[in-house]
């Protein structure tokens, strides 16, 4: 993680991984214009464990999609890893995601025709073109870290929901991205499994300095998050830092 430090340290000051300035997002629903985000601004530093919370329709998923370069804001400025992501074209966006961002989905979204091993290997193979030896080393390290080494040859339909999400976490981490976005990652898991997965993600953050950003309703994640942003009606209404300053 030395390189990451080099990238984000300018002198003594720690650079932000994400800088959002006055982000807005409008959706057109027939004749009606729906404003999903209204001038949201925030900064997130590397190796943070951040959660965006709020009721349904508050704009959490929209915000995560914008940070994940899956969508573009209607207005504002968004910089991720020193890159103005609003200027990226379709292909550049895909490439940027592949280089800098990992995704964990609510429904796990594993590729059903690939084994656990192959699912984790996929981003290295199809996105990063990592050499075979390096791929094997990284995948096996992560399989062990998420406790799925013995299940590596199973297909997604042969493992439980908790195991699927562990595989999804490993897949998101395998490329060593600076940022992992997780949209309701525990929504389909029981309490015990959810805690295990959260614990796993936190350990990974500690080990790899990866920034985790969640959108969630789940109090378990909220309880574990170090920075909590609250959204309501597309506006950022609060920022809570565990053991630190609270705004809102």
């Amino acid at each position, binding site marked *: 993680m030395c390189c990451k430090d080099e990238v984000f340290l300018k002198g003594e000051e720690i650079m932000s991984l994400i800088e959002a300035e006055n982000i807005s997002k409008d959706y057109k629903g027939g004749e009606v214009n729906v404003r999903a985000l209204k001038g949201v601004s925030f900064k997130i530093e590397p190796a943070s464990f951040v959660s965006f919370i709020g009721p349904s329709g508050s704009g959490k998923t929209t915000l995560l*999609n914008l940070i*994940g370069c*899956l*969508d573009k804001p209607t207005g504002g400025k968004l910089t991720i890893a020193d890159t103005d992501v609003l200027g990226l074209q*379709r*292909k550049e966006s*895909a*490439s*940027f*995601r*592949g*280089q800098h*961002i990992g*995704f964990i*989905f609510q*429904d796990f*979204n594993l*590729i*059903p*025709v*690939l084994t656990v091993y192959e699912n984790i290997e*996929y*981003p290295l*193979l*199809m*996105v990063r073109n990592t050499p075979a030896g390096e791929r094997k080393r990284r995948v096996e390290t992560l399989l062990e870290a998420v406790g799925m080494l013995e299940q590596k040859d199973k297909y997604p339909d042969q493992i439980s929901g908790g195991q699927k999400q562990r595989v999804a976490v490993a*897949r998101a981490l395998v490329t060593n991205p600076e940022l992992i976005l997780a949209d309701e990652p525990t929504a389909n898991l029981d309490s015990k499994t959810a805690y295990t997965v959260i614990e796993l993600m936190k350990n990974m953050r500690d080990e790899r300095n990866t920034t985790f950003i969640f959108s969630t309703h789940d109090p378990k994640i909220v309880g574990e998050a170090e920075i909590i942003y609250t959204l309501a009606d597309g506006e950022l209404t609060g920022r809570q830092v565990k053991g630190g300053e609270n705004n809102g």
Partner: protein
Amino acid sequence: MGNIFKIAIRNLLRYKRRTLLTTSLITIGVVFVLVFISISGSFKSMMISQITDSMLGDLQIHRRGYVASIDNLPLNLNIGAQDHKIVETLLKQEIEVEAYSPRIKFGGLFSNFAETTNIRLNGVYPEQEFKTVPLLPSRVKEGRKTLNKGEIWVPELLARGMSIKIGDPIVIVATNKDGSVNGKQFSVVGILESATGPGGRDGYIHLEDAMETLRMAEKEISEVAVRVKNFNQVNAVTQKLENTLVKKVNPKGQPVFEVHSWEKLSPFFNIARMIEVMTFFIKLMLIAVVLISIMNVMIMAVYERIREIGTIAAIGTLPGKILSMFIVEGFCLGAIGVIVGNLIGLIIIFIINLAGIKFDFGMQKDLVLSPTIAPHDLLTTSIIVILVSVMASLQPAFKASRMEPIKALRHV
């Protein structure tokens, strides 16, 4: 690329029944086309070889204007001795020519001393004629397969109608180009099976007997039949000979000779063309089958995997790679159909050859069907199917690669 193939194959195996149905459809199409091409090709080549190897020759050289009046067998349009030498010299020099045979063709009266009828006769040098049309002796149903001076091969229908038997004496009476009539006695040494096409019901005598019957002071040839070494080169050789012979002009400045390949002389060329047209339409049907079935499967595949496409796109898979994933899937469907279809097709062709199926063509009976498939036909059919498979996958693959990940991920 290997990984894209691996994912494509696994996705195909994921929907086993659908894959099986689609590949079966392609397989059946390929088998049908191969068997049709091989059988029709066998029929066509048998038909052509029956015409060229037992009567016509691969190409013929005439005096200009002869072919237009060929039904009358005009003696006044024969090639004179000097011109015949020019033709012979040319044919001897041409390395693509395997053999040639000069013929005097004329019509006359055929009499068995009890009845008289019309007959068309070919005066030939038997040795040269057999080299030029090697199947001719095989048409001798009864009697001797050699022909000497003073002997005649009589067409089967005429022999049957007039109760002619081997060894019978007959008389041929003919009028020469000056209008004088002459007769000559022959001994029947062979009954000739009729063949379909022009000249298929002609009798044969020695060329010198023909000259004697027609009271020719010097050799006047009606036509020179030519056999080429490579049948596929017939048209090229015809053109080459024509280009040379066209230089020989009469006092009016018109070419003395005309050169025609078998295609121009036999109406059966149209049947051969018809077979080719039918083969083309059969291939067109195969293309339609492959196009529709693969397009259908690939559209379904894209529709069913929208969320998966969204996931891999979100992870950072480039649009080009997503495009190639689906194209490879279509390619694999086509390739599997082609491989299995080729194998089954070849086995069926082998079985047909083993079975020795017989058929009749015109007057020829019991011709054995011996279908073969040329490697280039196999290759062409395979390439067509695979290309069409890829083309059929393009639209769905393009759609998948252009999909917005955010919309795809929201798809239920």
